[in-house]
């Protein structure tokens, strides 16, 4: 999943560096506040661990092996922010020193694996584990699921970034300049491997490590389980929330929303994104045929497609609500609506987490414990 140089256009790389920057900023501020003098040694040594874990060959059922990413366990043990820093550090060294993943694509790789991966792993783990005890088997399931979804979330981001390239960047003759496969090919090609081999490896490593730590070193699991009684009755870590520190994040989300019109540069219909009507309209049929190596589409819409279309009518078909007449404006509006829903959901999740937590006990930070 480490995207090398040359697969993504410089424009995509720049946007993803821009998308990752505010997360790095917030992560650095938050972890600095929490860890203070401990920041440098903890993050560096953990980054070294993440690097080494990526070299493990994990045997998966069926006699094959796959490399895990280690993002699941990082998010679970360190929490999302420190995990973002540690994994980004590991990815940086991989890109610059070992040539694994590109230098121009480093922003994209950090965005997919370090940022999306850490946040997904942590959210899923916290959500599924709930307030179960540190040694409960529910935490193992939560961890395994968190790892599985984290690596697949990261892979999906990578697939979308790669699949976008031929839609946006073509030479004058129409040859794709970067990754050549459109979304319709890139997403299944990448996701099949990750939903199976790589996902399983991550699932087993994350679940396995948490199960091992429950027996051997449960103290390492307490950081992302605030409010859960510890077997040894150790001090609770302080609650880490605060919308102010996340301000640059929201600025970035706003910026990304403003950048969405880039999507309008794409001409024509995306391969595989045809609607039922496209199969009967003559002009649209020609387009589909062109996009499909001159294989004529069936005369009528495939039965399954027509049936599905009736079941699921998205509120914004083709990304523009019916009452909006300009398609461009509708596209932007739809994007904002989509991002708005995500923001609302995260606020709701945060609020529920806040409610579930008993009164915040301001225990001394981890820095002072030695």
């Amino acid at each position: 999943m480490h995207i090398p140089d040359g697969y993504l256009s410089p424009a995509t790389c720049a946007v993803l560096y821009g998308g990752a920057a505010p997360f790095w900023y917030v992560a650095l501020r938050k972890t600095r506040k929490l860890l203070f003098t401990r920041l440098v040694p903890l993050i560096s040594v953990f980054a070294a661990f993440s690097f080494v874990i990526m070299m493990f060959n994990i045997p998966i059922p069926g006699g094959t092996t796959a490399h895990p990413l280690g993002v699941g366990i990082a998010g679970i043990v360190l929490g999302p922010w420190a995990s973002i820093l540690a994994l980004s550090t590991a990815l940086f060294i991989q890109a610059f020193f070992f040539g694994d993943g590109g230098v121009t694509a480093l922003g994209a790789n950090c965005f997919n694996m370090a940022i999306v991966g850490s946040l997904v792993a942590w959210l899923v783990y916290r959500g599924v584990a709930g307030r179960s005890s540190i040694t409960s088997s529910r935490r193992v399931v939560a961890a395994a699921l968190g790892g599985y979804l984290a690596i697949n979330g990261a892979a999906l981001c990578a697939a979308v970034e790669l699949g976008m390239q031929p839609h946006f960047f073509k030479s004058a003759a129409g040859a794709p300049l970067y990754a050549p496969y459109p979304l319709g090919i890139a997403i299944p090609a990448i996701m099949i491997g990750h939903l199976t081999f790589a996902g399983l490896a991550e699932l087993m490593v994350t679940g396995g490590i948490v199960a091992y730590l429950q027996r051997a070193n449960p103290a390492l699991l307490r950081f992302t389980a605030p409010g859960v009684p510890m077997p040894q009755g150790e001090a609770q870590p302080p609650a880490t929330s605060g919308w102010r520190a996340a301000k640059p994040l929201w600025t970035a989300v706003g910026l990304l929303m403003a950048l969405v019109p880039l999507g309008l540069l794409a001409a024509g219909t995306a391969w595989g994104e045809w609607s039922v009507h496209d199969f009967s309209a003559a002009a649209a049929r020609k387009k589909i045929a062109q996009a499909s190596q001159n294989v004529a589409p069936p005369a009528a819409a495939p039965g399954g497609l027509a049936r599905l279309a009736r079941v699921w009518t998205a509120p914004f078909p083709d990304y523009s609500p019916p009452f909006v007449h300009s398609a461009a404006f509708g596209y932007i509006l739809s994007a904002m609506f989509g991002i708005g829903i995500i923001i609302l959901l995260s606020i709701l999740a945060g609020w529920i987490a806040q409610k579930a937590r008993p009164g915040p006990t301001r225990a001394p930070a981890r820095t002072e414990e030695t």
Partner: protein
Amino acid sequence: MAAKRSGKRGFLERTTSSFVDAMEHAFYAEQMARADGLLQRLDPRVKLVGILALVVPAAASRSFMVIAALFVIAVALAALSHVPFGVLLKRVWIAVLLFTGVIALPAPFVTPGRVVYHLPGLGWNVTAQGVASAGYLVLRVETAATLCVLLVLTTPWNHVLKALRVFHVPAVMVTILGMTYRYLFLVLESAHDMFESRRSRMIGELTGRERRRVAAASAGVLLSKTFDLSNEVFLAMQSRGYRGDVSILDEFQVRRLDWAMLAAFALVSIAAFWLGQ
């Protein structure tokens, strides 16, 4: 992240050999950085900025000729810096071809466009656009990878990191990167020792279930060791007066050769952008 079929070598052997490969790579890079060549003599900041100034147009160019020219420049820089072609061939050119080449292979068949060849037997169409796009991908990746490898092979790692200050990377991040690199080898060694000792005590084949348990438990032990190590490092730092402020010594000097090379890098970069439109 490719899944491989496990052949004769078990997962323990394969994991240990990837550890050894990483260490070998690092030792070789350090040795190479001490050689007396053109790039080795440059100020690391000039080298970092210069190489990136060549990577970006290689990634942006729409012209084959420009990317190929940048590739030739990279090869010339390698020759002037005494980086053996055998190393580039093995570590970069063939490695990239095996990975990206395989990925680009179906592109000529699935990219829509003007049909230039009809594959007999299978009946697949090869399109001009598809061949061009596969060419773009492979050439771009080869060029960018060659340039990046040159940077790493001719510069001691701590100098690469210090050079990052040019881009206003926070001092604390530079310190973290430097320490990560230093402890990377300690963690690698510890993981290597764990796997070696496990292997030396094994007389039979492990079942799949046992292998998975060994892998997860080793990762768990390594994680616990990591945290202990970070505690020890923290105490060691504190006992030497570390109070959370990081400062980096800036000992680099830009000399005449550096200015000349910086100008050359800038010139090539601008020309490549211009011609690659």
